[in-house]
């Protein structure tokens, strides 16, 4: 029982080939689009590489890039097939390749679906990675003289100003870290000595934040130091002051940014999947219709096109049997592959002899 049979006259076959040729070129451009999307996402992730601890999230743009390149190649092959499909002498050489093409196209669609799913599923891992990365960034903020960390200050300042955020969860993260380097602390001053003695680790902690946390939209000049002390500033209430610094934490800001980016690419990827599937189905119809036409006495007559020759279950059974055959062939056959007639008795004798003599182990 054939799946989704359709009749094709010569004219319809020609139209199908032409339409499919155009659609395949369109699919090539979609593949290029997916590749560029992957590159864009990768560059955006690499730009903030210093505040991310691991690169697990990079699997999304990597898959996009691979799928984009593969899709360009596959769809280009489809255009060549379409060009040759109406020429009876050139079409047969594509027969073998077409089965592999269908498998490749299905694989590409599955990978694209996987990308969409992954971009949602990896959100938790991204947050974890950012949490650790930002914590380290804030801890090493003061180490502008340590090679390998000397640009952490600039990175964190730039990040906070660009994403309008402060600290990891919020600005209070800066109160728990010494972010002023010892080189700029006057150890003879009483204030400094008191602060260092006030905590177990001997760090210079203060209720102040770097200037990059300042909110330009605040109506008053930025208050950076003595933030929890209401009496230190005129007309200032620490609990109700919202505009002075950025309220968001940088982890939240960055996660939102990347999730927005990946969600906005979602519809594009889904439409590329749809286009690829339609190219797949159309090519299958074209293949079966042209093959049917070539088998007729009159090649210009009507032929049938279908998706699957037998039903879904039967095709699946056939495919499974074929795959098992191939696997069996690869295995070593215990009964010798080419027994000569004379040797059969000899082998039978040797086996019985072997069975007769008891093995030492038993």
């Amino acid at each position, binding site marked *: 029982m054939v799946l989704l049979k359709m009749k094709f006259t010569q004219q319809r076959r020609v139209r199908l080939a032409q339409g499919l040729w155009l659609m395949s070129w369109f699919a090539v451009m979609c593949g290029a689009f997916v590749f560029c999307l992957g590159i864009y996402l990768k560059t955006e992730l690499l730009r903030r590489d210093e505040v991310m601890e691991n690169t697990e999230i990079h699997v999304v743009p990597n898959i996009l890039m691979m799928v984009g390149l593969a899709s360009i190649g596959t769809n280009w092959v489809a255009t060549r097939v379409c060009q040759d499909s109406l020429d009876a002498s050139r079409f047969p050489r594509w027969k073998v390749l077409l089965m592999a093409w269908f498998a490749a196209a299905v694989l590409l669609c599955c990978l694209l679906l996987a990308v969409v799913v992954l971009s949602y599923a990896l959100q938790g891992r991204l947050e974890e990675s950012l949490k650790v990365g930002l914590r380290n960034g804030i801890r090493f903020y003061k180490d502008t003289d340590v090679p390998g960390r000397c640009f952490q200050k600039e990175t964190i*300042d730039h990040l906070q100003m660009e994403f309008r955020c402060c600290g990891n969860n919020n600005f209070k993260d800066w109160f728990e870290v010494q972010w002023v380097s010892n*080189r700029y602390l006057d150890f003879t001053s009483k204030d400094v000595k008191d602060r260092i003695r006030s905590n177990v680790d001997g760090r210079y902690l203060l209720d102040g934040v770097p200037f990059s946390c*300042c909110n*330009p939209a605040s109506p*008053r*000049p930025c208050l950076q130091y003595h933030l929890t002390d209401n009496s230190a500033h*005129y007309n200032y209430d620490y609990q109700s002051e919202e505009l002075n610094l950025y309220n968001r934490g940088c982890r939240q800001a960055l996660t939102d940014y990347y999730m927005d980016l990946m969600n906005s690419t979602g519809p594009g990827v889904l439409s590329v999947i749809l286009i690829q599937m339609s190219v797949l189905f159309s090519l299958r119809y074209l293949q079966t219709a042209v093959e049917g036409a070539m088998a007729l006495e009159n090649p210009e007559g009507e032929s049938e096109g279908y998706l699957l020759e037998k039903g879904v279950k039967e095709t699946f059974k056939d495919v499974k049997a074929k795959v098992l055959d191939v696997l069996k062939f690869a295995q070593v056959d215990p009964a010798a592959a080419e027994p000569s007639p004379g040797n059969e008795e000899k082998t039978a004798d040797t086996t019985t002899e072997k069975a007769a003599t008891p093995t030492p182990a038993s």
Partner: protein
Amino acid sequence: MAVLRVKFTKTSRDKLAQLLWILNWISVVTGAILFSLGIFLKVEINKRAELMVERDIQYVPNMLVAVGLIACAINFLGGKICYDCVDTTKFLRWKLIILPYIIFTFFFTFCMLVGALMCYTMHGELEESLNVGLTEAMRFYKDTDTPGRCFLKRTVDMLQIHFQCCGNNGYRDWFQIQWISNRYLDMSQKEVVDRFRSNVEGKYLMDGVPFSCCNINSPRPCIQQQITNNSAHFNYEHQTEELNLWMKGCRQVLLEYYTHIMQSIGLTVLITWLFELSVLTGVRYLQTSLKNVLKQGDPDSESDGWLLENSLMETARTNLNIIKSLCKCNQIDTASNGDPNINVPSTCKALYGPDNVPPKATTEAS
């Protein structure tokens, strides 16, 4: 004696017409590019409109937009004309329009040249506008409660952060104005009152700058207050400290930014002007060669094309005479006190002699 005479066969005329058709369409695209460059410049200037005093700087993008639109229209028409010039019958449609079109386009290219030159000469205007604008903006930095000025603080802060600059000429400009609003100053404190009394105008001046002047490349946390006081901070010397704040003044930075944009745009306009001029030359040759072909009668024959029929001086003289006679025709004769109803023999009419000549005596002959 024609200027730059060139012989054209039928095939070379056709090739010229086709080439000019393509070039005219390319010119339409360049006209659209000019239009979009004008819009881009307008948007960039309006983005910082609060920091510039309203001066003649808006003429440049407006000129570019107008020139771009007119160039698109002219070259579209030119494309149509050249497309029809391949066929001599279709050319007859355009015969009357093509010469005025060429003259109009020739004068239009002057406008384009003016537009390009304006891009290069706006430097002084722009600097003056920015100077006054930035001074005003810094003065009203603290007025976040005054309607109309409440976003000036954010504008100046974002400007200093984005362009990496501080103040008008340098960070010292902030020392000369009060940039902290009185709402946030505790007038009961002695120190505040002393500062107010320390200058003639009664302003709270301090040697401090807003946070947006801080340089993110500095290895130490930003020093914003008591900048000139070396003893207020550990291991700090304000004369040699270069990385703490942004050193450049915002006026210079913005001037460089806009000058760079306008110079690039000016270069594009100059190149477009040269291109338009060459297309116009081609159209003139095509027009004169087709005119001569029609004069000769045989559409497939060879003909001459030129830029000007006579030399430059003669052409200028004849044109001036035409303009003069046009003016004289229109002038009203003052002898009749400006009344057009009085029948006065006009100098424009062909002279067939005076009106009241008595008939000749024929009796003499006979």
